[in-house]
């Protein structure tokens, strides 16, 4: 048995108003997930009464910025630091910003590089 899930596309400028309204509605921030394709796809997942909803926005692969939602959901600081350290996304206004030291890794943005199959075939 699989639960039904919804993915709703939003624009970057809609993020903060949307997140604020979700907080008022009593939604729990479940996670923030980033996936690299031709763009960076960022999913904000929420849950209320076992209904799982994702709000999805797209960012450019390099140099794009994202407003922080820690003003609304403080616990997002872990996910936003992760977005910065693994994908190189500049999150603006993170209330607990580790400045790139959240993960003590040698590489910069290791998850925002071409997949190894592409590197091998190049």
């Amino acid at each position, binding site marked *: *048995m*699989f*639960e039904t*899930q919804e993915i709703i596309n939003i624009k970057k400028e809609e993020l903060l108003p949307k997140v604020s309204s979700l*907080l008022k509605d*009593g939604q*729990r*921030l*479940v*996670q923030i*997930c*980033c*996936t*690299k*394709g031709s763009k960076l796809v960022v*999913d904000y*997942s929420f849950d209320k009464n*076992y209904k*799982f909803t*994702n709000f999805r926005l797209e960012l450019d692969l390099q140099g794009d910025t994202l407003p922080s939602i820690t003003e609304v*959901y*403080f*616990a997002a*600081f*872990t996910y936003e630091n992760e977005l910065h*350290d693994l994908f190189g996304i500049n999150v603006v206004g993170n209330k*607990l910003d*580790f400045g790139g*030291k*959240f*993960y*003590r*890794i040698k590489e910069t943005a*290791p*998850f925002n590089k071409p*997949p*190894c*199959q592409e590197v091998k075939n190049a």
Partner: protein
Amino acid sequence: MPKRTVIPFGPHHPVLPEPIHLDLVLEDEKVVEAIPNIGFIHRGLELLCEKKPFQDMVLVAERICGICSLVHGIGFVNGVEKIMNLQVPERAELLRVFWSEMSRIHSHLLWLGLAADAIGFESLFMHSWRVRELVLDIFEETTGGRVIFDAIKVGGVKKNISKETLGRILKQLDKIEEEYKQIADVFVNDFTIAHRWSGVGVLTKEQAELLGAVGPCARASGINFDVRMIKYGGYDKISMEPIVETAGDCYARALVRVREVYQSLDQVRQAISKMPEGGEVEVKVTGFPTGEYFSRVEQPRGEVIYYVKGNGTKFLDRFRVRTPTFANVGPLVQMLAGCDLADVPAIVLAIDPCISCTER
């Protein structure tokens, strides 16, 4: 205004089997603020999906953690099976429930032992782990492993359990429950334990909701949330209600885990009684995954999320894991604010931190 001092806690500390660091900002003996620091052993396992075919990623998922490895495997295969439209045989689903709940019993007993050890109750620690050994014996008998089980695969399970073995396990469960009851009674009724943990590291229901707490941490604060209620996998055949406490302190978190062991014993018995006799335990898997899904399962420490995205090749586009300890870092910061320095180890331990999960 009292002078503020910053005391480093971890990454190496007697209550921390794995490295996590906290900068504790103190005014006298009171913690004013705690700044968490992880990432000492980040492994980047998620990126392995570029190199390993999706079937092999089950092995990677199972190796994220050595305590709840099987549940990680189930979280991953659930996601892949959803996007490949695979219907797993009922017996395999119930075998997964059986092993999942045995994992929960083993994980909670491990935590209860560690918690007893952290407050100097050595004999209780030893008895908790003695009972846990009986659970590990069942794992060894049914999967061949005591830590990493390698029993799950996309489309079903790799190992079956005979009717005779299941009958013997039912008898062993009675013995485990009888012995566990003696330990559980100490956790519930002992004055020292209640005195040490009551009122320590309080997280209110509102704070838990706002900060996204999961698992026993959330349920100890009065949140009635357990991912098993979405009835993933074989849980649609298992009846249950989430175990909830309301005090929101370390003692409530312990009580939730104590009661969840009984609940898991009941679910193991349900899974065995509802398991169809004979039949297949796997379906043939053809083709490659296409599509995406957020698979949610209830680990011993709480909700874990596997995001899988397939592109029609044997490699996944994305394999992402959000572990319960990662979600409980924010709530931990809240629990620590305002506590006494001497209570920090108990509070950190009370979220049952799993850093190997967090540093996947």
